[in-house]
């Protein structure tokens, strides 16, 4: 790792198309270095996969993406090992490409790495008052990448009154790749983004991603992140409430069995008066699975009339599983309503027995109870096709958990 910041990273950046954003990010990244377990914000994350993979950038190999026919419906973009394969331009006729120069500066080392070393992923603007019908799907797939780093940076701006449903799918094979992505989102006045992320990485993968969302007056962000695959997955959401009347839901569901770790970090900054935010997070842990949830709410001194809530519930299916939850409230205004709550529990034995007594087999009974618990995290996802994609991932995880525990 030592020579990574000295030499490797210089070579890596030289191999990429030049752009001014990279240079600034590189300087900041070199100064900051990668985080370690001693960093409070990273204490739960397993960063060994990052160290292993960081020196090798993914190469552009021409691979035909494999998609089932149900996936293909409404596909808008596919990235294989970080290289854009296809963007369905027809579906994007109301969209303009954004310039990558108005990139916002980042303070998270991996986000900086995406800026310095990443290809441009999706860079688009949804023009004023445009309402895109149906969800836009982005597929990020890793295939035969070997042990290497995949950096991507995306930028999406919703102009005034525009609305979009964006669904991101992250998946990959058994290779020990590191998938590192930055998504910067700007919501102008009255814009609405529904954003669902399904992180189902391969068994040996490390995933670090950051979503940075800036909300102007009366804009709405409804986010949901599912983590149910990968050796070590860290999802960072950084929400900045910059406009009065803005509202953000930042929901998450993390599932981990032995050999999986899911780390969620959500920071909501209320910087102006009269904005609201709500976080519902659920963890389900089996075997020796691990999860962490850090939820930080910052309310600036003049952000009066802020309403910010957070709830994190964890379900441990086995005593050997581990969960860490850490709410952090930094409130500098006095006229605010903020709440947070965290619980850790086990399966309800009485409910389980009631189901068995009605003839439901133990595996199905457990699955029903887990689904019932988990579904609280995506109650706000409305689109039926998206809900069933979430349920399917959940079901797959449960099946794998029963098999491999």
């Amino acid at each position, binding site marked *: 790792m030592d020579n990574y910041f000295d030499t490797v990273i210089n070579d890596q950046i030289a191999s990429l198309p030049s752009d001014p954003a990279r240079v600034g990010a590189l300087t900041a990244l070199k100064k900051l270095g990668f985080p370690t377990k001693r960093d409070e914000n990273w204490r739960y994350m397993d960063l060994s996969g990052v160290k292993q993979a960081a020196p090798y950038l993914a190469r552009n190999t021409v691979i035909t993406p494999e998609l089932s026919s149900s996936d293909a419906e409404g596909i808008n973009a596919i990235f294989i090992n970080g290289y854009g394969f296809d963007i369905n331009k027809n579906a994007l006729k109301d969209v303009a490409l954004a310039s990558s120069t108005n990139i916002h500066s980042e303070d998270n080392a991996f986000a900086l790495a995406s800026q310095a070393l990443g290809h441009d992923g999706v860079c688009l603007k949804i023009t004023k008052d445009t309402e895109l019908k149906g969800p836009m799907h982005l597929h990020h797939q890793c295939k035969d990448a070997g042990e290497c780093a995949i950096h991507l940076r995306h930028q999406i701006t919703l102009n005034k009154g525009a609305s979009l449903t964006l669904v991101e799918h992250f998946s990959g094979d058994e290779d020990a790749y590191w998938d590192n992505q930055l998504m910067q989102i700007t919501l102008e006045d009255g814009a609405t983004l529904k954003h669902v992320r399904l992180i189902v990485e391969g068994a040996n993968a490390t995933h670090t991603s950051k979503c940075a969302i800036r909300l102007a007056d009366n804009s709405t962000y409804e986010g949901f992140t599912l983590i149910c695959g990968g050796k070590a997955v860290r999802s960072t959401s950084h929400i900045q409430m910059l406009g009065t009347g803005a509202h953000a839901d930042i929901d998450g569901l993390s599932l981990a069995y032995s050999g999986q770790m899911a780390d969620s970090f959500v920071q909501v900054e209320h910087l102006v008066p009269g904005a609201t935010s709500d976080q519902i997070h659920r963890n389900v842990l089996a075997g020796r699975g691990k999860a962490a949830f850090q939820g930080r709410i910052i309310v600036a001194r003049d952000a009066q009339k802020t309403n910010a809530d957070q709830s994190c519930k964890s379900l441990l299916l086995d005593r050997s599983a581990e969960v860490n939850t850490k709410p952090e409230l930094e409130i500098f205004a006095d006229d605010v309503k903020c709440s947070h709550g965290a619980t850790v529990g086990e399966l309800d034995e009485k*409910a389980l*027995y009631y189901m*068995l*007594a009605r*003839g*439901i*087999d133990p595996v199905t009974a457990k699955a*029903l109870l887990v689904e019932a618990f988990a579904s609280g995290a995506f109650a706000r996802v409305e689109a039926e096709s998206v809900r069933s994609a979430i349920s399917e991932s959940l079901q797959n995880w449960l099946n794998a958990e029963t098999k491999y525990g």
Partner: protein
Amino acid sequence: MLEIKNLHVSIGDTQILKGLNLHIRPGEVHAIMGPNGTGKSTLASTIAGHPNYEVTEGSIHYQGEDLLTRESHERAAAGIFLGFQYPVEIPGVSNLNFLRTALNSQRRIRGEDDMSAAEFMKLVRLKADDLGLKPEMLKRFVNVGFSGGEKKRNEMVQMAVLNPTLAVLDETDSGLDIDALRVVSDGINAQRRDDTAILLITHYQRLLDYVQPDVVHVMAGGRIVKSGDKTLAAELEDKGYAAYG
């Protein structure tokens, strides 16, 4: 149909059932009465296969087969239904989903095909209507926010849909208003056939006025201490359990 011999059951270190014998033939309705804490619910839970109840001695045979070697869900699939004294709330799982999963799970265990969604909906609506459970309650989470009486009606809807051969109904009558008792009794009587058996656990004679038992048992100290015809229930109502203390 149900043959229980010398049944001893303990929970942890506490012995609750101490040599209970009971024989129910097809087509019969039996009632068990007895003071609080004598082990009536323990008997019901043991028949249903609750894992916390340990059978230390004795046997239970159902339709000629050893029941004790089977797990709860297998017993249910074999036709045994336990109406809970305290029905359980399951937040996040709808009544419809619960019941449909239960029905199809039983059918699979018996080697039958799943019931189609349409057929199931027809059946469950019909049974809910029979038992006066409002259709919108079917969509609600299992027993969550149901009144005591509504929970009991819900148990009866489940019984009617699952159509068991042996129904063990643990105080299904308690908490019911007078009209509900009549509706629930009709539901129980509808389940009374030549090929089914019913075991009622109750504290009140009123239920037995509607669902006439063939045999009434008095349970005390973890055993059945007296059996008789339905006049025994009237006698108990009159004199209490003092004679069996």
